[in-house]
């Protein structure tokens, strides 16, 4: 008598795993704060999309404009700016580049034509431009660092997306700095070691160095380094070293050539 082996059931063809739904933009903007690695993984895997960098940059610009308007509405901040302008003119007089009469005239013109409203408008305009320029600049830096130091290639637009999304960190930093400036009544009141200095002077290099040690900037730089690591598929440690080295050198250079105020 023949016995038949039961025919093993034919395994059902497993349906292909459906790809994870693309992260919505709002999700990317939120997750870049808490889980930036996931965001940049998706950026790397998906084609470039303008919204990925344009929306964060616009948010950064709007936040910057609001911050400037709030700061210039503070009497203490206006007084600080006025004192700085007077001090700069006094220095010109001391150096012999200007007479006292010219200084008095310049102060009158400043008081008349460069009041808080004018300064707020010009500052807002500058902030909008700076928002775009800084993102494109960081994108260029990431792209070049990837090519030169990590020996990898990725498109510039990818770098722009990374830099654009990372600017959300700077938005948080803007909000923090604005609140601290309002509370403390000081212009330079970001979450940095400059808070330890009661009379912050942007003309002093030592104070600028303390101001550069800003928690938000470090965080932003770290996020950029992670983005570079993801785009270039390089070890995160290497990317962090490369990006932070650039950041430190850039800060020191700006402070050395007298543009340290732009680094704050």
């Amino acid at each position: 008598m023949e016995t038949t082996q039961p025919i093993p059931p034919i395994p059902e063809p497993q349906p292909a795993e459906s790809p994870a739904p693309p992260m919505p933009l709002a999700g990317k903007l939120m997750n870049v704060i808490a889980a930036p690695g996931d965001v940049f993984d998706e950026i790397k895997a998906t084609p470039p999309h303008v919204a990925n960098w344009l929306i964060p940059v616009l948010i950064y610009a709007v936040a910057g404009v609001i911050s400037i308007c709030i700061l210039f509405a503070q009497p203490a901040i206006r007084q600080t700016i006025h004192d700085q302008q007077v001090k700069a003119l006094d220095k010109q007089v001391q150096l012999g580049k200007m007479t006292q009469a010219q200084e008095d005239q310049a102060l009158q013109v400043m008081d008349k034509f460069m009041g808080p409203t004018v300064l707020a408008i010009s500052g807002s305009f500058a902030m909008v431009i700076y928002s775009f320029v800084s993102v494109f600049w960081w994108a260029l830096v990431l792209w070049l660092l990837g090519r030169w130091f990590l020996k990898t290639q990725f498109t510039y637009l990818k770098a722009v997306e990374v830099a654009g999304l990372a600017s959300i960190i700077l938005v948080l930093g803007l909000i923090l700095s604005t609140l601290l400036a309002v509370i403390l009544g000081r212009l330079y009141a970001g979450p940095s070691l400059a808070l330890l200095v009661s009379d912050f002077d942007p003309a002093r290099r030592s104070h600028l160095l303390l101001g550069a040690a800003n928690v938000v900037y470090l965080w932003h730089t770290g996020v950029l380094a992670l983005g570079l690591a993801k785009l270039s598929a390089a070890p995160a440690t290497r990317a962090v070293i490369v990006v932070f080295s650039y950041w430190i050198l850039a800060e020191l250079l700006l402070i050395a050539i007298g543009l340290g105020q732009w680094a704050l």
Partner: protein
Amino acid sequence: MARPKKRRKLLIFLIIGVVLVALTLVAVFKKREPVITVQTEKVARHSLTNLVVANGQIQPVVQVTISPEVSGEIIELPVKEGQSVTKGDLLLKINPDVYIAAVNQAQAGYESALAAKDSATANLEKAGADYQRNLTLFNSKLLSESDFVGFKAARDVAKAQLDSADDQVNVAKAAVESAEEQLAKTTIVSPLTGTITSLNSEVGERVLGTIQNAGTEIMTISDLNQIEARVNVGEMDVVSIAPGQNTRLEVDAFKDRKFTGVVTAVANSALGTGAGSLLSGGNSGSGQSQQATQFQVRIRVNEKEPAFRPGMSVTAEIETEYRTNALTVPLASVTTRPMKPAVKVDPPKTGGTNAMVSAASGTNTVAGTNAVAGTNTMASAMKDTKESLKPTDVVFVVEGDHVKTVPVKIGICDDNYWEIADGLTNGEEIVSGGYRAVGRDLKDGSKIRVGPAETGAPEANP
């Protein structure tokens, strides 16, 4: 795996949210006040010298204007401007012809008077002899009384005529002396040793004498060995100036030299008023002046400088008051603010009710007394408040990061410091700048930030 990740995200957002909300609440509810940047100094002790600054001119102490007493034409002028002359030197001669004629005329009158006197003398002698002769006859009863009286009278008349002639001689003699004196005045010599600092006339000019009017000022002679500064001081400052006060002088022509002097005289009346003035009004104008009231002060210059010229401009700093080791603050620290007095309304005392009633309302109602008395007291207090809101000298004392307005009583000042007579203690930190902050922005309780001084070398970057 996804769950811990989700929890981590939530935790991060929660932390960020809490921090932002907390900061926002603090920012919204925090009292905002402008922070004013100031500079500070400590109240310290210094010696002060109060100075009154006045401008004027260098003038010689002794300065004589030569004007002739007689009128005439200058025929000789052997001196020139800038020449040194000694006392007694010939200065000028005026044409003496008229005066010589006057002398001759007077002399002739004198001689005529003498002749008249001689005649009167002879007449007296004759009348006297006739009197004597007829007296003998009268005594011998050989002459009538009436005839005798005639001879007596003739003698008396002759005597009177002699007396008159004698007086005429004196008059004529005085006329001669006067004419001679007028003649002598046509020659003018220097009354002092000095330098001719101005010469206003030339040979041939006709000059007027001081007998008729003010006289022509021919020249001025000054003793340049003794120089003084004549400065004009305003009426507010002149009360603090007295003879004997030391002075620092700066002559415009000698910018690199400092001179010293002593106040020797202070005018009693203002320039231009003239009456009762201590000093001759060389600078007095005519009529009433619209300019500020000023008084002339004379300051003797201690140093001898041959190059001094009368009329040189000079600035004097008269040291009027001194304070040694006085409590002082920088000049810029003191400003004025309207100060509100601490109004204290005392409640009316029940024990003194009747007295207050009679003084205030005159009512005898006990119930209404306290209200009326209280109302009157409050009304007078309110009236005092309005009247007391006067600008008061104040200084801003630093208390932590705020300032307190402290009224002070100031004394004298010099170029840098005010003396503080009352209101501050030694070592207190006070606001000394900036100018706008002290003069306008600072109020009682203002929040401040001590900024670096705006003058001096910039801080070196480390």
